[in-house]
């Protein structure tokens, strides 16, 4: 498809396990973002990637969270030693570029993560 693709769509895991969430951005989009939405809250910025520049990790809530973007395309968000407060919908977005004139970000449908 032409949109942002995320997998899995749902993930249930036990507390303490590691999880990996995947994002395939729109082809040609150089900027990629991760957000999360906890129940009843707005979207919270986590991390973004822009081309070959160092990622902005300022939104990551703890060092248990990390993300990679390989080859300037697919990205993986990894959460180690998951905690119950990590339960949320994790959303990925991409845009043509992110600096200068504003460019709308286009979102995937998210991964609903539930920590038991």
């Amino acid at each position, binding site marked *: 498809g032409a949109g942002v693709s995320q997998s899995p769509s749902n993930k249930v895991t036990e507390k303490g396990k590691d999880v990996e969430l995947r994002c395939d951005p729109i082809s040609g989009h150089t900027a990629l973002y991760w957000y999360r939405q906890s129940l009843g809250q707005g979207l919270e910025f986590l991390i973004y990637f822009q081309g070959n520049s160092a990622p902005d990790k300022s939104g990551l809530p703890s060092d248990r969270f990390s993300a990679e973007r390989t080859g300037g395309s697919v990205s993986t968000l990894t959460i180690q030693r998951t905690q119950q407060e990590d339960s949320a919908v994790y959303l990925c977005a991409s845009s043509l570029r992110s600096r200068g004139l504003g460019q709308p*970000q286009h979102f995937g449908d998210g991964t609903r993560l539930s920590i038991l």
Partner: protein
Amino acid sequence: DQQVKQNSPSLSVQEGRISILNCDYTNSMFDYFLWYKKYPAEGPTFLISISSIKDKNEDGRFTVFLNKSAKHLSLHIVPSQPGDSAVYFCAASVSDSWGKLQFGAGTQVVVTP
């Protein structure tokens, strides 16, 4: 701290009438504003945006107004349709930075027949 605020968690409007959604922000560095619409179990869908050099932007039934002095923006939907029932998020960014968006908590709109 919540830099983008949507103080109305819900809004009910009759089909055919105007829906007005409000958003306030505190960071005077924000210069690019967006509205997103979200259905359950789907990602947010971009609706309309406005740069701080403008005070109005219109796209079909959707119009966004920006009042920089009041740090306030609003989204007007007219006429409202049942398919407009969704959660609407206001977002803002500093375009000279790397574009990360700050989101409001959202307003649930219900359009009744």
